[in-house]
């Protein structure tokens, strides 16, 4: 770590950047403005917390811009056990989140083309293509990404991350820590949990070496506690979708989930979600629904279509359809009860093996059924995501069973979470139209 880098970091991030972003947030909070194109006739105004989300995300990437040389940097998969790294003082970057951000900013085709020109196939995950493109070209909508000192890939979301992170390890020539989480077809056997625990333990000396300091277990417990608190708040926020009308939609959740994914284990994240919960409760008290004329309620399965969030939200909103729950956003909250700050490593092993993406197709169907019941839903949109095979395999059967055995209308929507080239606008529009019509007919 260098003094010059630290001075640069403090000046640009902690003094100038922080003050500027805070001022920007205050301005936005004092004079809340609804974006010009926002459909206030069908949707509730954006959540006020949005100004804070923007500040948090901007601050996170601003830190990333100046962090090299000041703090160690780790790139981590979105389901990765980040608490050990947070406790060791790492700046943590999630390439998938960066990929999602590129999706919302509509720069994926440009970045992906950089990767494709270097020989990467369009058949690999679009997050990976986007980030590899950013890595090779240096282009990014956030200005600059920090170089990693350590990579951590946890296979609990897919095996793709292992293949992807091997590419990163090869490019940056830095250690790659693998936390391999055996897939849970039915229940995780004890030897699988033990295996994950052992890998977590083994990752500590590697991370310590890179960080140049020893792990303080008291600090780790604090971080794990903060992770649990934030996850519980997130779970509560999503649970508020059970109200009629639902105060927030999954499109709101998609936008505001960034902190729970990339800032777990921080006090600022807990404060953020506490404030968000308060605002959501205010909406409930005032009877405000995310969709003004909520008549039908849906479940969203799989990743968002990042580059068409507004289109989908408006199209469905126009028809009085609110998408109020999602198996995807639920994944960052449902495991909160498993986290035990007093037994950090052991409980992390159990928590990180059980995300929905690491579980069988039958479990996912059961989760959907439970959510349909809990949230009193009228149908399901299953996003068949070309770039996410583990989430998508099984959806054909899940859809069929939802319709045939449980009488729940369900639509399989073909797209890609990040690459708009796999999104057939007209086809999606006609399928959505037919689905909405079916919802109101109450027939299949």
């Amino acid at each position: 770590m260098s003094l010059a880098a630290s001075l640069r970091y403090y000046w640009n991030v902690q003094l100038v950047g922080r003050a500027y972003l805070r001022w920007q947030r205050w301005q936005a909070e004092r004079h809340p403005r609804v974006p010009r194109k926002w459909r206030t006739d069908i949707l509730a105004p954006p959540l006020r917390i949005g100004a804070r989300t923007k500040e948090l995300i901007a601050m996170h990437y601003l830190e990333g811009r100046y962090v090299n040389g000041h703090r160690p940097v780790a790139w981590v998969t979105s389901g990765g056990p980040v608490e050990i790294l947070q406790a060791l003082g790492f700046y943590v970057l999630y390439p998938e989140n960066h990929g999602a951000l590129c999706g919302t900013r509509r720069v994926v085709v440009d970045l992906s083309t950089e990767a494709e020109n270097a020989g990467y196939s369009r058949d690999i995950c679009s997050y990976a293509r986007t980030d590899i493109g950013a890595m090779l070209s240096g282009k990014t909508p956030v200005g600059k990404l920090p170089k990693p000192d350590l990579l951590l890939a946890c296979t609990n979301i897919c095996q793709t991350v292992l293949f992807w992170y091997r590419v990163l390890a090869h490019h940056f020539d830095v250690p790659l820590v693998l936390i391999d989480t055996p897939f849970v077809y039915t229940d995780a056997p004890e030897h699988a949990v033990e295996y994950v625990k052992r890998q977590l333990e083994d990752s500590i000396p590697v991370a310590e070496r890179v960080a140049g300091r020893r792990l303080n277990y008291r600090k780790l417990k604090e971080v794990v506690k903060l992770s649990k608190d934030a996850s519980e708040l997130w779970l509560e926020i999503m649970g508020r979708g059970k109200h009629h009308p639902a105060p927030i939609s999954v499109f709101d959740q998609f936008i505001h989930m960034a902190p729970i994914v990339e800032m777990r284990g921080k006090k600022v994240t807990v404060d953020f979600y506490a404030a968000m919960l308060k605002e959501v409760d205010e909406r409930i008290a005032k009877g405000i629904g995310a969709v003004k004329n909520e008549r039908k309620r849906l479940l969203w399965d799989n990743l968002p279509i990042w580059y068409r969030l507004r289109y989908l939200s408006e199209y469905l909103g126009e028809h009085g359809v609110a998408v109020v729950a999602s198996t995807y956003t639920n994944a960052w909250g449902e495991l909160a009860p498993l986290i035990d700050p007093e037994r950090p490593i052991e409980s992390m092993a159990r928590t990180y093996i059980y995300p929905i993406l690491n579980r069988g197709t039958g479990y996912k169907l059961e989760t959907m059924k439970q959510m349909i019941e809990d949230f009193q839903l009228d149908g399901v949109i299953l996003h068949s995501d070309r770039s996410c095979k583990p989430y998508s395999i099984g959806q054909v059967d899940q859809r069929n069973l939802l319709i045939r055995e449980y009488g729940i209308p369900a639509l399989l929507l073909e797209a890609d979470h990040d690459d708009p080239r796999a999104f057939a606008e007209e086809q999606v529009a006609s399928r959505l139209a037919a689905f909405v019509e079916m919802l109101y007919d109450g027939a299949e």
Partner: protein
Amino acid sequence: MLSIPRRTETCREFKEAGGLVAAVLPIHYPRGLLRAFHILPVEVWGPPKVDVSYGGAHLQPYICSIVHNALSFLKTGGLDETDIILVPHACDSLQGLGSILIDFVKPRQPVFPIYLPRGQRPEDVDFLAREFHALYDDLARITGWRPTDEEMLDAIRREEAADRVLAELYHHRRRLALNNRDFYRLVRSREFLPAETFIALAQEALARATAEPRRDGIPVLLSGIVPEPMDVLDAIQEADGVVVADDLACCGRRLYPEGRSEDPFRRMAERIVYGPPDVTRGTPIRERAEHLIELARKTGARGIIFYDVKFCEPELFDLPNLRNHLKEAGLPSVTIEVDIGDPLPHQTITRITAFLEVIE
């Protein structure tokens, strides 16, 4: 010309002798464990030439043809003679297949998944050994038979002997009187023949080996998952190429080293975990590149054909870096993507021919 028994006859004979047959999906699994239970593993790499619409009723079109075809094969009765289905975890798509078999398709046969660790660390060996132990318990439950450690080790050593002979076939590849297709028919008969039958066949081929290695044909190395449709091997032959080595998941990536442990479960786990470089087991890219370069150096291969199944993410991620390393080492390469259910397109044949002309 070697007379290789047919898959169906082999299964029938094995069952008539009182054994069971397990359909095994790619890639790595404990052959010795199955054989200790008198179960014959018969591998399912697709296969090509099935009506894929049956798989399409459960899977999206962006799932690879190996998985599509395997499910279609099962649904059209191709696995009716088998008693067990074993699904080793190799990638997200095979993981998904295992999961929908258990949860939705529910075939007549019991389905057992096994998870293969992605590292080469001591904990990976320990975990895999315990995973095999769990499989042992499952097999004991359905067969009512609990082989002793000694019986297990006997079966494992028999498999190791077969793998030694397999390695010899590769070692003497250019002295064998076998063309590309016949060589791979023999090598791939290991996918369904009992070890003892395979050893006898392989030794017969080795006995017919010429004293001096043949110098005909342009030597190439084949990398990928599986050489299907096998017409690709004829296409290489017709373009005057000879496959002198491979890095195929169904062949060269399973030239496992001898086990060391006297504990049968650990021994099987060690063999797989410390096997040749393989992307699905998480081998670093540089190590894979060095392995390919070394393989080419040893066998005199002048170029590498990456013959990959469309949508195979594990392979696709490595290709750009692997090809760069090979280029730096002076080894030209070409990539070809196929759907194993389709006939070999003429375009592919033209590319192979052009590539071989270039490296000649």
